[in-house]
């Protein structure tokens, strides 16, 4: 191995170590907005959505993964800016109410998480950052009270019967 090959190998080892120490996104600054659907009458599932703007100190926009419902979801990244978006849905009866902390991981964190999950290891991997989603619960009531609808329907049926009666009594 000549000197040149040795230098390239050293460069690779050091850069890997450097990235490993600092991560893909050191000191992330996160701005987030969250949304959860609150209606159960017109929708079959509860939807959760998070929009993020992540600014890393190295000005990179790394790939992010969100840990939701015991699985990792790839966060959609904007091609032009450092904006991200992730959403998922759950059946109404499984939708958790209250504050839900969602951990975000970079490639390295996600691969460690995957490895832990695969081998069933309970080693905690700290997320890059966490965003809290506030879900207030669902509203199952319709906009119009069923009693009122029943009243209108009965009025319609009676009106039809009355029209028939008037025709008969002419």
């Amino acid at each position, binding site marked *: 191995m000549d000197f040149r090959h040795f230098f390239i190998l050293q460069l690779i080892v050091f850069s890997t170590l450097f990235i490993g120490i600092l991560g893909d996104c050191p000191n992330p600054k996160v701005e987030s907005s969250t949304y959860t659907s609150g209606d159960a009458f017109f929708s079959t599932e509860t939807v959760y959505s998070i929009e993020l703007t992540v600014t890393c100190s190295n000005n990179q926009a790394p790939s992010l993964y969100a840990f939701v419902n015991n699985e990792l979801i790839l966060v959609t990244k904007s091609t032009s800016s450092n904006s991200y978006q992730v959403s998922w849905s759950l059946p109404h009866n499984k939708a958790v109410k209250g504050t839900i902390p969602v951990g975000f991981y970079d490639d390295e964190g996600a691969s460690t998480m995957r490895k832990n999950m695969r081998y069933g290891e309970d080693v905690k991997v700290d997320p890059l950052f966490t965003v809290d989603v506030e879900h207030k619960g669902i509203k199952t009531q319709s906009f119009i009270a069923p*009693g009122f609808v029943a009243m209108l329907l*009965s009025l319609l049926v*009676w009106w*039809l019967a*009355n029209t028939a*009666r008037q025709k*008969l009594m002419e």
Partner: protein
Amino acid sequence: MPAKKNEGAKKMTEEELLLLESSRHVSMATSALFYGNAFIVSALPLWLYWRIQMLDPLTYSPLFVIFVCVSTYLVAYAYRNLQHTMKYKIALRREGVISREVAQELSKENKQERDTKASEKKNKVADREATAFSIFYSNTLYFFILLVLFWFMRTFHPVVNFSITTSGSAFLLAFFSTGGKTK
């Protein structure tokens, strides 16, 4: 003599038919139909109070029985009134068709015989039609009034709601049934 006797019997039948047409008399079967239907219609709202307003059927059984009985009587009364109001009009409407049909069927019989048969059939048809329509119409009106009262009484205690809604709708139905013109 026997011919005269037969003629008298026919006359009686015709008179009876005419009386039957304008009387408020209903047959036993029709009456049973009225009361049976009225009972079903009056008992149906109990489900609403049992399952939605959470009135325990065992605890409130005396209240349920009293109000269902009162409602059954009033609804049956409304059926009877409406049936009587409509019977005459329906008979008038169907008269021509029935007379033609009977005349075709009994072309060999004399006119009196044909008239009696036509009158009998007309009475039967009008009775059946008026019975069916009076039950249908009264049921629709009863449920409409019941749901309106139920809607306006929704904030009241279920017992008050049940008492007023059931008796009120049956009473109003009976009251409205008396307003029609017979002829």
